[in-house]
């Protein structure tokens, strides 16, 4: 029994195994059958047919179903195969249809073909395929994190057509763009479409933009060399401006905004930067010539163009500066020559005219070039700065030994003396111009001193046209240079105003005290010391008539204030004397001193030089000058023996009873002493004090300071008034050292220490 069972068992097992194997084999067969079926189905999915526009619905359904079946099969092997099949379909299409088509065409046609191929590919083919393979995408692709079906389409396109796009397609685009640049009309819509393709492929920056910019570079490199040699500077700039406009226009129309800057800067670089030297240095039309000829439109264009480029305006600015400086220096030189002619001939009037003329020319020059900066250089601060620097160069040049500060004061003097009816510019405008020029002059204190002297003259001899104008100038000066600059001058003007008050009181006094009345019309101007320039006082013997006047006023003034002391300046007074000449009685307007001389002849008919000198008790040079003005000049009120042109101590003088003139009232001129040197001396000495004060102030604050710093701080502090000579500063430092205000540091000799 056991044998049988064992055998049976074995047989059963074997039979079971056999059954199983059979079953497995069958399953395997079935599986393989299925696989084969699926494979067959896959290979049957004809994509070629998809390139046709219409596809009947049944075929679509069939396709979709087939794919679905394959995708849902539990055997995942097929998914991978299907994915690669999907890619394959794309590549086949591209290789078999798209590429050959592209290769057939060139130029604009290529672009059209390119655009349409893509359109068809991406919208028709790809979308369809995607549709069918959607199930695959949703599950398999997502799960395996593969490149999703959408992107596969793009990817295939890019992989296969990259080189094609980069070279042939872009060449065609560039060619087209260049045609437009050359002036032809092109199909911009096409360009836009191509741009879109690249954008959709996300290759805009890499391929399109890069090649377009490179193309722009090439184009303008060539054009630049050509144009620069063929065209004058203005012509060239005009072309550049046009190009820039066109490029901007084109880019804005067809391409992405970011590209604009890149293209424009290439154009700017090639046209403006690379050849700038050549452009500016053009002999007959370059920058220098444009400035000389005043070609403002071209200059404005140049400014506009070069303000786009980094540091582009340096050259223009420098050329402008040099030009203005040259103009100014030319004026200076010209005036110097003219002036020297007049100096030789000793023609003082013409000399002054030239000097005044120069200032007027400076003012005109300033107006012109200020308008340049404002109108053509868009009020650029760099240009303001160089304008200032240029003016500072030539506005500080002396003409035949006369400093510009003095020239300006002469001009000012004339302006304020003139009746304000002539020419088109109002006095106030001229005053504004004067102050503008003063800013450029470094020796402002020199101007102040000269002005003060001339102001005094104008105020005292009533030559000023208008009080308002004087005040206006002072206000402007105060604004520009500070209160200390004008304080004295303002004091002077105030003194004059107060005088009216004093005169009224004096008149009242005389009315109330008739015995004090000297019997003559007397006007006294009281000047406050310190405001007015210092005048030489001279004591001399007053004629009795004048003595009475002086006494009267003295008495009056003492009633007003006991404390103030008055000193008489006879050299500044004027007097109207009635001359009873035989032909007719005349009024003579003379200075007080001249009057004194004449009054001597009331008691004696004939006097010698020494007589006159003794009686008046004046220094010789004054006596000589007085007598000269009365006997040898224009009006010979006195007869001189001998009748020579100069005064000598042995001369005799007689009253000229036959003297007459056409007019009834004449002014006998008395020439002024040239006190220019004195003014300059005053200023120089004031400067020494100012420098010393500045040094002490600085050192007191700093306690310890190095040489260079002290020098430069000193110069800076004083810069609003004058430009100090470094030698003088050094001198003052040494003077302070020797007076023990400062000492040198024992270790470092270039460091100073303040000694309290």
């Amino acid at each position, binding site marked *: 029994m056991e044998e049988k069972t064992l055998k049976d068992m074995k047989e059963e097992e074997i039979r079971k195994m056999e059954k199983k194997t059979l079953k497995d084999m069958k399953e395997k067969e079935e599986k393989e059958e299925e696989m084969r079926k699926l494979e067959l189905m896959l290979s049957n999915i004809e994509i070629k047919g998809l390139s046709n526009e219409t596809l009947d619905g049944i075929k679509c359904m069939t396709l979709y179903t087939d794919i679905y079946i394959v995708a849902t099969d539990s055997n995942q092997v097929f998914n991978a195969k299907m994915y690669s099949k999907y890619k394959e379909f794309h590549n086949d299409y591209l290789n078999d249809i798209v590429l050959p088509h592209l290769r057939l065409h060139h130029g604009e046609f290529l672009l059209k073909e390119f655009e349409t191929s893509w359109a068809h590919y991406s919208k028709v083919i790809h979308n369809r395929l995607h549709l069918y393979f959607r199930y695959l995408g949703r599950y398999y692709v997502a799960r395996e994190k593969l490149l999703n079906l959408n992107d596969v389409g793009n990817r295939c396109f890019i992989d296969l057509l990259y080189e094609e796009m980069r070279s042939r397609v872009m060449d065609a685009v560039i060619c087209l763009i260049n045609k437009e640049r050359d002036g032809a009309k092109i199909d911009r819509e096409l360009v836009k479409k191509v741009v879109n393709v690249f954008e959709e492929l996300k290759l805009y920056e890499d391929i399109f933009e890069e090649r377009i910019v490179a193309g722009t570079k090439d184009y303008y490199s060539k054009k630049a060399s050509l144009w620069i040699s063929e065209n004058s500077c203005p012509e060239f700039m005009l072309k550049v401006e046009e190009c820039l406009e066109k490029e901007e226009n084109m880019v804005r129309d067809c391409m992405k905004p970011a590209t604009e800057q890149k293209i424009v800067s290439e154009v700017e670089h090639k046209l403006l930067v690379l050849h700038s030297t050549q452009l500016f240095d053009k002999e007959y039309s370059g920058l220098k010539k444009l400035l000389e000829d005043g070609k403002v439109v071209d200059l404005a264009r140049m400014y506009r163009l070069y303000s786009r480029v980094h540091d582009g305006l340096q050259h223009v600015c420098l050329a402008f500066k040099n030009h203005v400086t040259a103009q100014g220096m030319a004026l200076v030189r010209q005036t110097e020559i003219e002036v020297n002619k007049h100096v030789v001939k000793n023609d003082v009037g013409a000399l002054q005219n030239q000097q005044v003329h120069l200032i007027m020319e400076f003012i005109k020059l300033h107006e012109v070039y200020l308008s340049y900066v404002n109108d053509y250089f868009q009020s650029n601060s760099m240009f303001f700065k160089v304008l200032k620097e240029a003016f500072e160069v030539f506005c500080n040049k002396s003409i035949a030994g006369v400093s510009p500060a003095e020239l300006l004061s002469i001009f000012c003097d004339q302006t304020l003396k003139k009746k304000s009816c002539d020419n088109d510019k109002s006095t106030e405008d001229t005053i504004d111009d004067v102050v503008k020029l003063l800013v450029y002059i470094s020796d402002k204190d020199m101007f102040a001193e000269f002005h003060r002297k001339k102001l005094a003259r104008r105020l005292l001899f009533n030559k000023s046209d208008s009080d308002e104008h004087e005040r206006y100038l002072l206000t402007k000066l105060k604004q520009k240079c500070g209160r200390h600059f004008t304080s004295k001058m303002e004091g002077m003007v105030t003194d004059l105003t107060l005088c009216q008050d004093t005169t009224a009181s004096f008149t009242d006094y005389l009315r109330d005290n008739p015995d004090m009345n000297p019997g003559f019309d007397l006007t006294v101007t009281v000047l406050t010391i310190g405001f007015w320039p210092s005048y030489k006082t001279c004591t001399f013997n007053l004629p009795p008539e004048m003595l009475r006047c002086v006494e009267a006023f003295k008495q009056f003034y003492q009633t007003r204030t006991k404390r103030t002391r008055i000193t008489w300046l006879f050299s500044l007074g004027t007097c109207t004397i009635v001359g009873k000449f035989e032909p007719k009685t005349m009024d003579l307007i003379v200075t007080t001193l001249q009057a004194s001389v004449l009054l001597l002849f009331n008691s004696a008919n004939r006097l010698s030089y020494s007589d006159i000198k003794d009686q008046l008790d004046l220094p010789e040079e004054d006596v000589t000058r007085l007598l000269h003005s009365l006997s040898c000049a224009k009006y010979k009120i006195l007869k001189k023996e001998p009748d020579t042109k100069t005064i000598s101590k042995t001369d005799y003088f007689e009253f000229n009873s036959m003297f007459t003139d056409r007019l009834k009232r004449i002014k006998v001129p008395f020439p002024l002493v040239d006190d220019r040197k004195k003014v300059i001396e005053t200023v120089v000495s004031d400067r020494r004090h100012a420098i010393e004060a500045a040094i002490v102030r600085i050192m007191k604050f700093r306690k310890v300071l190095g*040489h*260079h710093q002290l020098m430069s701080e000193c110069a800076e502090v004083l810069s609003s008034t004058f430009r100090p000579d*470094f*030698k003088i500063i*050094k*001198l003052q430092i*040494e003077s302070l*050292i*020797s007076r023990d205000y400062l000492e*040198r540091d024992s270790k470092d*000799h*270039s*460091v*100073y220490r303040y000694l309290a």
Partner: protein
Amino acid sequence: MERIDQLFHAYMDKSLGMVGPEGIESFCLAVGIDHTDVRILMLAWKMQAEKQGYFTLDEWRRGLSALHADTILKIRKRLQELEKEVMRPTNFLDFYVYAFCYSLAEKQKNIDIESACELLTVVLGFRFPLQVSKFIEYLKSQNDYKVINLDQWTSFLRFCNEINFPSLDNYDAELAWPLILDNFVEWMRENL
């Protein structure tokens, strides 16, 4: 100390109570140097003598004891060493400044040009002969300065030490050199 005092009394001017100009002259004769020799100036420096031409007892003592000399013979010997001592850079400046102050008249702060030239020759002549002779030439030919002050005096030594002569190529007028030296350099350059 005794002998130092004795020596003092030997040369002292009895009416003054200190060694006067004649005393110094005889002293120099004894030591064997000229009374305009720089070494007497060096001795004065060692003494820190205040008034030119006179030595007080204290000063005399100070100087001679510093010299470790109490006889004429010893003084003579020590003078040579003294010279070397003075020549050392650390001492020389002190000596140089002292020479100026010593030469000042009563209540004065400056030395007139003539005396300054003489003093320069004595004090610096052997060390910087070229600079000194040129500078003296300049000082005598110009009119801007009538006196020399201490600052100018000290700066001149610094000038001799630092500036190449006669090329003057490393002189920079923009630095803190006194104006007189700026003018001197300018004069040198013009008269080359």
